[in-house]
């Protein structure tokens, strides 16, 4: 099946979940917008849904643009990013979809997404690697200790220095070596599987469900990259 259709489908699914979350938070939203702007809020949600359907049916470059403008307006209302990294990745995917439809060439859009998702891991890994505490495992223990979620008993084993050291270095190795995923299809499968596990762990430890879905939406572009030829 066409990889871009997979990207569109997963993107729409992810944002459908996000839309439900925004809807459930509508009271908090209205409060922080400092207005009783219910009509404006519902209008934003309708455009959100309408442009998602346009993206799902993969019809025109107009829908990613409408979605992006509407989404940007929505996050402005939230005093900035509601969920930083996942918002960034949403805009990367929208740009990729726009490029694909505007040029009427799926490959350009997929190429852009594959490149950007790879850079997301490498740059995140590089930012961590510059800190000594990531090499000793201390950072990971600190982040886990400060997580605002209740810790299950089994999660506490990762607070021990030895496990934290192993997990920290495994994370650095995974992120920094991610460009290897672009070398061949088997490596892509391995890295995509590790990526799913990585984002699932981020969900379990920090509750970052949006990262899980939005990065998952980008993986068909990686698989397309090495399945060419």
């Amino acid at each position, binding site marked *: 099946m066409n990889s871009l259709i997979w990207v569109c489908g997963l993107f729409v699914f992810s944002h459908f979940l996000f839309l439900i979350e925004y809807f459930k938070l509508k009271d908090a939203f209205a409060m922080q917008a400092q207005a009783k702007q219910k009509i404006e809020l519902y209008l934003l949600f309708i455009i959100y849904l309408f442009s998602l359907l346009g993206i799902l049916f993969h019809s025109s470059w107009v829908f990613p643009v409408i979605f992006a403008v509407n989404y940007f307006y929505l996050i402005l209302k939230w005093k900035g990013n509601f969920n930083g990294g996942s918002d960034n990745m949403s805009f990367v995917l929208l740009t990729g979809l726009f490029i694909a439809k505007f040029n009427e060439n799926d490959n350009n859009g997929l190429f852009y997404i594959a490149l950007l998702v790879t850079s997301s891991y490498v740059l*995140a890994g590089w930012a961590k690697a510059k800190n000594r505490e990531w090499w000793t495992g*201390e*950072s990971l223990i600190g982040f886990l200790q*400060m997580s605002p*979620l209740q810790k299950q008993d089994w999660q506490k084993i990762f607070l021990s220095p030895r496990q934290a050291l192993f997990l920290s270095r495994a994370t650095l190795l995974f992120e920094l070596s991610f460009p290897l995923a672009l070398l061949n299809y088997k490596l892509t499968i391995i890295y995509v599987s590790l990526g799913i596990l990585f984002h699932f762990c981020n969900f379990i430890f920090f509750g970052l*469900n949006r990262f899980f879905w939005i990065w998952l939406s980008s993986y068909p572009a990686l698989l397309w990259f090495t399945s060419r030829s």
Partner: protein
Amino acid sequence: MGLLQRILQNCRSLFPYWKFFDRLGGVPRLDYRFSDKMVLSDWKPLHPHQKLSLQNIFINEKVNLMHWELSLLMRLFQECQKLNNNELANHEIYLWFKNRVASELSGQKYDWFQFRIQIQSYQNQKMIEDLWIESESFARLQK
């Protein structure tokens, strides 16, 4: 804050920015307490540790709201360094949390409430808390 200024500030989200969990810094924590007929409650966290279940991988609005509010507190911490007490008390994020605590207490009897913001950090294998802001007391608005 003007619309243009806000747009410029938020343009960052349009460009890829991939620094996550890179540096172990402080994490803000907001507690509040209230007084009802001269009886003062204990400090209560606005964001108690949330329990996560597997189905939250689909819909997790409470945790996402909490992450967002913690990032707002962090922004207040960064921006308030240049503000005097009066400017801080009128800061939009400060006012947001004043309203937020008031709405948290909406089903509760109280005469006034107060909140404090602390910065938690992990240093030398210990959690350390530094008090950063203690708000004035806010009387309950009469309906």
